[in-house]
């Protein structure tokens, strides 16, 4: 029995019996996410990756690396393409190797001031994607159908092999962040000060890069390589609009992320659209609404001050 199979059993049937929530859920098809095994897998994968992405995305945002996730997703896609061509049973493992390697190389090059600026990072990352596409074109005739799932996500088709990878990446990322979040925060705020304090900023940086790269891979099937940013950065950015402290932003990021995912799943199942794109759309709309809300509230406050 696979670890994730065991986890699904515990969550939905044994201890937590989340499947009992099914009848209380709105909509015609949405309750299936709680009652039917393949959709239970989808729900677990979606919620778990959203939680992890929310935490790490907040730090990416603070580091001004919002598009790093997008870039690494490109690389992952290149890895998937190579994996498919080589006939791998689980191409995501190739994506993982590609993504983590690229992230570590970028981190080292940046540390040594050899690679600076958005443009050079973008060139590096699109180069890896291009490699995947060329390889696919030359050796991979006729398997383009598979590719679409990785571009736009294929949440409802996640099997236990995929889910095992997603769950492992998520748990390792969460546990390491739990122990290192203070050091990571200090490094993010002021890397020199953190280093002087005795924090091993170099190792923190390498760990963070590798973790983000792995998390991006875990999100590929949930939301698709094209839409990774929607879960990685959007909830965190929405929280920054209203939060007043770091702690508050973290809590809000999770609330916003999970709401967006559940609402996205609901709408996609009821309207029969792709799950990944609907989740991305919902989280963007939530950001838009909150943005408008804060503008209105600020204007009101200014008006009152003038009156």
């Amino acid at each position, binding site marked *: 029995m696979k670890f994730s199979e065991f986890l699904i059993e515990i969550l939905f049937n044994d201890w937590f019996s989340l499947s009992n929530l099914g009848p209380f859920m709105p909509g015609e098809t949405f309750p299936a996410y709680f009652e039917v095994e393949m959709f239970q897998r989808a729900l677990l994968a979606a919620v778990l990756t959203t939680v992890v992405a929310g935490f790490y995305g907040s730090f990416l*945002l*603070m*580091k*001004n690396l919002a598009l790093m996730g997008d870039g690494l997703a490109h690389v992952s896609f290149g890895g998937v393409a190579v994996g498919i061509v080589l006939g791998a049973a689980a191409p995501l493992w190739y994506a993982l190797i590609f993504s983590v390697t690229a992230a570590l190389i970028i981190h080292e090059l940046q540390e040594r001031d050899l690679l600076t600026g958005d443009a050079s990072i973008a060139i590096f990352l699109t180069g890896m994607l291009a490699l995947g596409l060329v390889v696919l074109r030359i050796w991979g005739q006729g398997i383009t159908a598979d590719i679409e799932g990785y571009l736009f996500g294929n949440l409802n088709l996640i099997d236990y092999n995929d889910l095992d990878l997603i769950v492992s990446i998520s748990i390792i990322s969460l546990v390491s962040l*739990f*122990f*290192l*979040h*203070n*050091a990571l*925060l*200090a490094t*993010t*705020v*002021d890397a*020199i*000060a*953190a*280093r*002087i*304090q*005795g*924090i*091993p900023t170099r190792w923190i940086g390498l760990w963070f890069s590798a973790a983000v790269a792995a998390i991006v891979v875990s999100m590929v099937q949930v939301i698709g390589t094209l839409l990774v940013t929607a879960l990685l950065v959007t909830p965190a950015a929405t929280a*920054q609009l209203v*939060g*007043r*402290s*770091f*702690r*508050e*932003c973290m809590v809000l990021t999770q609330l916003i992320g999970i709401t967006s995912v559940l609402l996205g799943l609901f709408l996609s199942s009821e309207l029969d659209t792709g799950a990944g794109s609907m989740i991305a759309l919902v989280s963007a709309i939530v950001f838009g609404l909150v943005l408008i809300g804060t503008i209105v509230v600020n204007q009101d406050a200014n008006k009152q001050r003038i009156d």
Partner: protein
Amino acid sequence: MVQAESMLEANNLSVIRSGKIVLEDVNFQIKEGEFVGIVGPNGGGKSTLLLTILGILSPAKGDVKVFGHNPQFVNFNGKVGWVSQDAASIPTKMRMTVRELISLGTISSKNLFSFRRGKESSAVEDAIKLVGLEDLAEADIGRLSGGQRQRAVIGRALASNAELLIFDEPLVNVDRSARNGILKLLDDLCHNENKTLLMVSHDLTAIRQSAHRIVYLDGQVQFDGQPSDIPNLSGLAGLIGLEHVHSHAHKEED
């Protein structure tokens, strides 16, 4: 004798950056309890000296010793506090309270993994009090004035119980009214809290008024002594263009 102990010393220090000799044969010492100001023109090697003291750059010749050790290989675990220019150090896309920022100062390699910070919290409260931000402890650092933010960054360095505090242009983003408050705080830290201070600044007036000793750095140490010993320091500075930079900075603030 503790008083004579040198906390920081540069011996025949030369540093080369991108093929250019930035510091040449620099010698000076800082003893415990001193407040030393470093002035000099842009490109005179002030930031290079700081980065070398912090162990980030390595000397081409000679050495730097902090607490008697080479800073490149020794982890001072909070004994050295670094106070950067606040605007350069705090990311803008982040919400964080003053208390959250200051508490980051308590982390070192010794408590890297700990997530309950009970023991450290008294150090944090002390630091908040010392920099006079009790009323703003829960305020978002993004909404503070330049002077208040600079106090918060100083508080972060104090939370680690640093004995040697190194300031990089602490007055750059601070307006005139807050400037004297910061200088008073630095004075307090030196005289009442027994901290040793090293401050780099363009603000010659500020350095003359608060530092015990001035080191004038222009590739080499051009002057090292008490402010009163060189009545024509501003003349010297004007010659090299320092005073110009200094007055320019004030114009921008106004």
